[in-house]
């Protein structure tokens, strides 16, 4: 019987971390309805940036900051 050479698992590089999320994604991550995210933005509690066409994006750092504020 032929010996099958052990295959060495190549270390996989993790996918690069997202820099920003859409409102829907941010809502999913925060576990809230997306109206709540718009409320947080309007209330100045969540800072956002604008992509092409003016679409709102929530920077990852801002989401983490919001989650860590308590």
């Amino acid at each position, binding site marked *: 019987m032929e010996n099958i050479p052990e295959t060495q698992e190549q270390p996989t590089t993790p996918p690069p971390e997202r820099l920003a999320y859409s409102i829907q994604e941010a809502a999913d991550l925060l*576990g809230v309805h*997306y109206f709540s995210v718009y409320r947080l933005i*309007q*209330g100045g509690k969540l800072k956002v940036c604008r992509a092409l066409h003016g679409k*709102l994006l929530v920077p990852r750092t801002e989401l983490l900051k919001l989650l860590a504020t*308590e």
Partner: protein
Amino acid sequence: MSNPFEHRRPTELEDKAHGEAVRHFAEHLKQFPASREAVERLERDVAKIALAANIAAAKPTSQPNVILADDGAQWHKSVDLMENIHLCHRPISYGAEYAVVEHFPARGTNEIWNRGWNAGEVLKSFTHEQRQALQVWTEDMTAQVKEFLAEKFPGQDLSRVAEAFTLKCTTQAVSKKQSVTHGHEQNHSRGVRIQN
């Protein structure tokens, strides 16, 4: 905002693009009118809700309705306003203080949005801010639709489609089926519910 297709009928391409946008953003088309209607209902019922909160504040409150808010104080839930959002009160030496508090499940926190000694004024401030939040939503939705159309139909001027979509989303009424299945607003669609 007036109907962009009022004076000139949509072209075949605009028709197709509008159909695709409506399919792609179906969830927005469902959620936005429902949220707008919830805000309108609050605006209509400010006096009624404020009275309910005053009555709740005058009653002895039960422990399950006590929440700890981000200001470190304990608040008693008076009236459910929206999903995870309550009008609350707490006794103070000369009456009661009121606050609109939102529960954030992921953080396990209760965030105070508005507070004051007059329940009606607190509610008015809250509904005013909800209107502004709806405006932020509208602008973002329009931008998302524009991005979607630019990717799907590169090089085409479909600005009328984006305008028509926004108009449809911001003015259409909530269907009966939606208002029954959409739990977000269901709690307060038949009057004001006071917490015991």
